[in-house]
């Protein structure tokens, strides 16, 4: 019986980590192109609200998932236009995206507060795999959106390190001038990957409103977008390591939730809720120190606009 408690806790960690994982993988892809998009939180919120609206009106959560990705992808496209074409400051533009997304999602979602979804994403046991002891219940009795990440993460890793476009992407992020000289279209690569990154952030938001806690609440992401940005550094811009980090945070997140439900006194809950944020700071400090020691780190051109004339 002792065993099953741990299995349940780990399974909960995966579910709670999945929205962060989507967003973190998306941000890794965007940052690999040399574009720092701090609008993840805003894009997640817009994804959450548009996905919820679409799913509530059509009773089709898959459609909600797609709409969420399109909406956040559109926001990312605006971000790309500002930072890549108009060369605006990436830090401040990302903040603007988050502030605008927070406001926009609150504005659009107002009539949907307290509305229940007709159909949500439900866990589907994978035949065969779900019967494996311990691993089965942890990994293979989840909803379809979790399974997508099992494919997405290795796919993103393979794309980055073992394909030609992935190599071009990393070149653009490290040294856009050199990539340009080799005939890579720096602007197109940046646009494309910022938009893909935004779509994944929206997917993470939609996971929250369609599967994790099927509902819409203003600011329901509660800083998960920012945690995802921190995770990118922890993951040293590698999707496989982001998986680890996301599940770690998912574990803390679900632990807080479980403890809160278990303790009848409400006061310590404020301190429990601080845990993910404090953990983010600690992890970020440790990860940054490690990258400095090992001389690995951010893509060389991260957050620097590319200007052909200043090559």
């Amino acid at each position, binding site marked *: 019986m002792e065993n099953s408690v741990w299995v349940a806790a780990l399974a909960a960690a995966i579910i709670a980590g999945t929205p962060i994982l989507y967003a973190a993988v998306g941000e890794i892809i965007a940052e690999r192109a040399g574009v720092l998009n*701090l609008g993840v939180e*805003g894009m997640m919120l817009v994804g959450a609200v548009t996905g919820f609206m679409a799913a509530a009106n059509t009773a089709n959560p898959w459609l909600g998932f797609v709409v969420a990705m399109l909406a956040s992808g559109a926001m990312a496209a*605006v971000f790309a*236009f*500002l930072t890549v074409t*108009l*060369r*605006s*400051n990436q*830090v*401040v*533009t990302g*903040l*603007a*995206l*988050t*502030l*605008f*997304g*927070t*406001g*926009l*999602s*609150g*504005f*659009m979602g*107002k009539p949907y507060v307290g509305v229940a979804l007709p159909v949500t994403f439900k866990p589907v046991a994978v035949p065969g795999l779900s019967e494996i002891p311990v691993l089965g219940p942890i990994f293979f009795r989840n909803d379809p959106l979790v399974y997508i990440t099992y494919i997405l993460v290795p796919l993103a890793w393979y794309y980055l390190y073992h394909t030609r476009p992935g190599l071009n992407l990393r070149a653009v992020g490290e040294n856009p001038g050199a990539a340009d000289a080799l005939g890579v279209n720096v602007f197109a690569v940046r646009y494309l990957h910022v938009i893909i990154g935004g779509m994944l952030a929206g997917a993470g938001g939609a996971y929250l409103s369609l599967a994790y806690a099927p509902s819409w609440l*203003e600011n329901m992401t*509660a*800083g998960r977008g*920012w945690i995802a*940005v*921190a995770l990118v*550094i922890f993951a040293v811009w590698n999707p496989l390591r982001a998986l680890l980090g996301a599940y770690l945070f998912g574990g803390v997140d679900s632990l807080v939730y479980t403890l809160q439900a278990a303790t009848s006194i*409400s*006061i310590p809950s*404020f*301190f429990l*809720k*601080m845990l993910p*944020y*404090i953990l*983010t*700071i600690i992890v*970020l*400090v440790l990860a*940054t*120190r490690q990258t*400095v020691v090992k001389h690995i780190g951010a893509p060389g051109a991260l957050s620097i606009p590319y200007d052909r*004339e200043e090559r």
Partner: protein
Amino acid sequence: MTWIGWEKRLQPSPWMAVVVPVLSVVLALGLGAIFLAATGFDPWKVYLSMLKGATGSKYGISETVVKAIPLMIASLGVSVAFRMLLWNIGAEGQFYMGAFGATWVALTFPHWPAYVMLPAMFIVGCVLGGLWAVVAAIPRARWGVNEVITTLMLNYVAILWVDYLVYGPWKDPQGYNFPLTAPFTEAATLATIPGTRVHLGLLFALTAAVLLTLILWRTRWGYEIRVIGESVKAARYAGMNIERNIILVMFLSGALAGLAGMSEVSGVTHRLQHGISPGYGYTAIIIAWLAKLHPATVILVSFLFAGLIVGGYSVQTMGVPAATVSMLQGAILFFVLGGEILTRYRLHFGRKEVAR
């Protein structure tokens, strides 16, 4: 080579520096109008009632000034950090810590007279806000830890900390179970202009703006801040201590946000309560950028955003969502950022002449 392209200006255009922010506000209102119309509101009517709510009466004007005070102070703090390219996104949390510190003084020493109480609240508020920023500044200075994320995470921690206090040990027993502390004594409240709610914090804001201007353009420290903001390499080459300046500037930045929190509890609410700031710390970021980080301009722009907040409250009775204002604020910043290229570059049409 191309038919349309950017051409770098030799000098940033002073004309565009004015046109872009003004046009941005207009375009953001236009975008907001589309969203309002799409959700069944008459945008013209909404904007008119917002304007009337914020400026149409003595009460409205007084409220706009009251809301402008925390925005000015916090935004001055944000702007000094941004000038050194320190992205302090934590004004919101520093505001809460300042409010917490000031409240601690007011509740712990209720018998102090005003001439001891208010300076003590002022100092403790500033110091706590400053230290909260330094928590992020030290890892940034020593190891280059991204301060955007740390300051932002600290916001959540500070808000939860204040919530713990006002829902727990500091809850007013006579407060009908609302999440707020007992009211302050008379000695712990800032004087107001008779007949309005405008309090002494306005003087704090204006003084801070003057002092900051003097520091930035008349002292060696200010010179260092500006040089580091322009080029860290040049500053280091000139022998400036970057690490120390990161910590000092972040302390100053956080102290100002903390002061905004102090002046809010002491001047407006006269107690600490849940949600004491409706996002002043975030609005302060937009104001700082819109004001091009200039103290005097920060003061002016703060009135605009305060008016937006007050106007937003006044149209909530029409059923306009509260989030409309934060959406408009975000949109304004978007357009400003997009338009900034026009101050540094000019659009050219036709074939560019290649001078070789």
